[in-house]
């Protein structure tokens, strides 16, 4: 009896990786999915924080795709290892702080490691030549295969016919004729294929599935590194860059101002790690202070905090300042006038 081959499919939660896995499943290959969590994945986080997003139906798309395909999904925490990819990408950044090519090489290399450890035969991705300007070009396809160490164990079913035959094709584990030759940014071939497979519900992420492709998020990350004079970060930093308004009145401290109740509740969990502020005479947002503000800076931060609360037009408000050790004091402060907040303080 012919041996059933096994492949691991990189599942992002989008349509392309779903179709790539489905294409090879149809050929009788045993498929399991793998999804890497870098800390910057868009999946879930802001929905989990913001009150206004709670009414929307929410799902983790990679889990949903795996369930639709009827395959197992392995979600792998790569937060620590991913730091070296982001901090010093060999192939540089894209339009923002997105190291897309290095990221793809890293993920395929992790998948290669996984197939060796789990006795699988090859790797599948949903890559399409010309789909993305940095990581999915004709020139980058061999770079990903070579630098990841996957070499010809890396099969891209959606554009395989435009690439040299890989080992699974040469060995007859998959029939190359039943693979595809999609190129470019048009989504029409994928949509037609989805229809053929009876897939009528899939995620269509705008701007990709990573916060690092977001201009505003990237600006906050660069600001963080600049302020600390170091390109290091922890997961909590990554999380807090996703919430609130970020305001840097001075180089040595930054304010994170909750924009709504859900963000405020999430930020409550950081009160032991940061000095925080909350107006007690009027309703207003919770604010975290990152850095080392002086007593004078605290007064300035309090006046800015007051500007975002219901007491913004009051002559004076009471502002509670909570230290990391839990001690608390209240100061009286005049809210900063709305037009007195310099644009350049907003990150």
């Amino acid at each position: 009896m012919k041996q059933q081959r096994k492949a691991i499919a990189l599942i992002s939660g989008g349509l392309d990786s779903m179709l790539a896995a489905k294409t090879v499943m149809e050929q009788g290959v045993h498929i399991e999915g793998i999804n890497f969590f870098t800390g910057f994945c868009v999946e879930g986080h802001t929905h989990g924080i913001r009150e206004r997003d709670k009414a929307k139906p929410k799902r983790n798309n990679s889990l949903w795709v795996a369930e639709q395909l009827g395959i197992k999904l392995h979600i792998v925490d790569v937060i620590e290892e991913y730091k070296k990819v982001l901090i010093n990408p060999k192939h540089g950044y894209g339009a923002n702080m997105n190291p897309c090519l290095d990221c793809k090489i890293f993920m395929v290399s992790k998948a290669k490691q996984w197939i060796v450890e789990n006795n699988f035969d090859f790797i599948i991705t949903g890559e399409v030549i010309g789909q993305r300007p940095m990581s999915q070009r004709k020139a980058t396809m061999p770079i990903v295969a070579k630098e990841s160490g996957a070499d010809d164990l890396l099969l891209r079913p959606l554009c395989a016919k435009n690439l040299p035959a890989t080992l699974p094709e040469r060995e007859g584990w998959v029939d190359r004729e039943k693979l595809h030759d999609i190129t470019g940014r048009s989504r029409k071939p994928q949509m037609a294929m989805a229809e053929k497979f009876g897939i009528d519900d899939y995620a269509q992420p705008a701007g990709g599935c990573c916060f690092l492709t977001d201009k505003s998020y990237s600006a906050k990350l660069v600001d963080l590194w600049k302020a600390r004079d170091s390109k290091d970060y922890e997961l909590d930093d990554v999380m807090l860059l996703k919430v609130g308004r970020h305001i840097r009145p001075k180089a040595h401290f930054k304010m994170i101002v909750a924009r709504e109740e859900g963000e405020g509740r999430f930020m409550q969990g950081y009160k032991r790690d940061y000095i925080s502020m909350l107006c007690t005479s009027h309703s207003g947002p919770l604010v975290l202070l990152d850095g080392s503000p002086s007593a004078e800076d605290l007064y300035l931060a309090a006046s800015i905090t007051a500007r975002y609360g219901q007491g913004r037009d009051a002559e004076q408000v009471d502002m509670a300042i909570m230290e990391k050790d839990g001690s608390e004091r209240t100061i009286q402060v005049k809210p900063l006038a709305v037009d007195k907040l310099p644009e350049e303080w907003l990150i």
Partner: protein
Amino acid sequence: MREVLNARRLLCPLPVIRTQDKVKQLQPGDQLEVICTDPGVMQDIPAWCRINGHKVLESSSGGHEYIIVLEVGG
């Protein structure tokens, strides 16, 4: 055997990853109670259980906490 996993303050998919890692250390038939603060777990952990052959015994929420009890599959 029943174990408790504290996944408070973690946002999805981290509660799923922690659940996945904990389940690897358990035996079929063992139960795991996962306590979370991200409401997304009410969708994600049951989905993860379904595709990996585990069974959700209970799910509940109160205050700002969400609790899921699962039984490890064979």
